[in-house]
């Protein structure tokens, strides 16, 4: 029964990123989890070894199911009526930040939501899904140049929105450096 536990380990590793990606494509976390459930079960039955080389196919399954689900949202209404996951709410945070990252996470989430969907999708797959441009291009049926372009535009847009966080996040000084000498340097005016 060792394999029965393998899916749990793989699921624990991949589920947060998968849900984050699905959330870029559907309206709520509840919908996203519904999509991830279907995609993961389908993928695991096909590849029960959990081979990492098949992970792009899992993201592709999430994408296909999410796009299908978007077309028929009546299923969501039925599911939420009989499931407790609806309590997670539409505005459940997308990230699980450390205490010092909470403010940043909220800003990032807002900035991500402001991006066009195709850019948001590429950023999510690249940064949190760890997929290559090649893999993203294959799963979305788009050229690699288009994918790289979307990623670049997305980063530029995010840079504009998050640039002011640099000092807070990276500890870079924004004003003149603090004088750590035990005494003030001599004034040149006094010597002249």
């Amino acid at each position, binding site marked *: *029964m060792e*394999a*029965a536990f*393998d*899916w*749990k380990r793989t*699921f624990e590793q991949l*589920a*947060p*990123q*998968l*849900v*984050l990606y699905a959330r870029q494509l559907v309206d709520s*976390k509840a919908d996203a*989890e519904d999509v*991830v*459930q279907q995609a*993961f*079960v389908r993928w*695991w*039955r096909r590849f*029960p*070894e959990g*081979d990492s080389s098949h992970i792009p196919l899992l993201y592709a399954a999430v994408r296909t199911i999410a796009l299908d689900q978007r077309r028929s949202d009546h299923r969501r209404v039925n599911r939420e009526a009989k*499931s*407790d*996951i609806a309590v*997670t709410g539409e505005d*459940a*945070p*997308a*990230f*699980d*930040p450390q205490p010092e*990252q909470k403010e*940043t*996470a909220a800003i*990032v989430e807002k900035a991500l939501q402001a991006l066009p969907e195709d850019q948001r999708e590429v*950023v999510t797959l690249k*940064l*949190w899904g760890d997929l290559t441009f090649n893999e993203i291009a294959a799963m979305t049926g788009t050229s690699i140049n288009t994918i790289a372009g979307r990623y670049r535009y997305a*980063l530029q847009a*995010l*840079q504009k929105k*998050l*640039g*002011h*966080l*640099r*000092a807070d*996040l*990276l500890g*870079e000084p*924004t004003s003149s450096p603090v004088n750590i000498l035990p005494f003030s340097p001599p004034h040149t005016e006094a010597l002249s």
Partner: protein
Amino acid sequence: MNNDLNEHELENLLRGLAPAAASPALRQRVDEELKLDMSWLSTSRRKPQHAPRWIVSAGWAAMGAAAAIAVMSQLPQQSGTGAAHALASASTVLPASTIREWDDSTGSGIHHGRSRQVEKHALVISRELGTWVDPLYSAQTTAEIPSRQQLLLPVSFRQ
């Protein structure tokens, strides 16, 4: 001083944010759905075959040969039931059949050999098809081993 994040810093910042965990209910639902159809469990023990077919065939052939040798070496020392036990425990791969097919043969005519005997040389091109089965997985494999043999056939005439 430029306070904007450069691309690398921005990527690090974003990657540093961990996506929110999936709800326990999701994991439970996946668990229930996978339990509904456990057929994937039987396939999970199979490894994907990336090796070329000839390596797989040769591997099976080698395993079959090893199993056959192991079984045969046990047979003289064991009683009837002991031999059966050895057969079952020696290996999960068992030889099932061996077929030799002649593809071509050419003869060089009848002539006298060194010992003054009448003989005929023949070249036989054949294939040996060995089949091994693995009862544990209900698996079966067939290895094809080509061969070219020079045969020396004695010839006799009616007096």
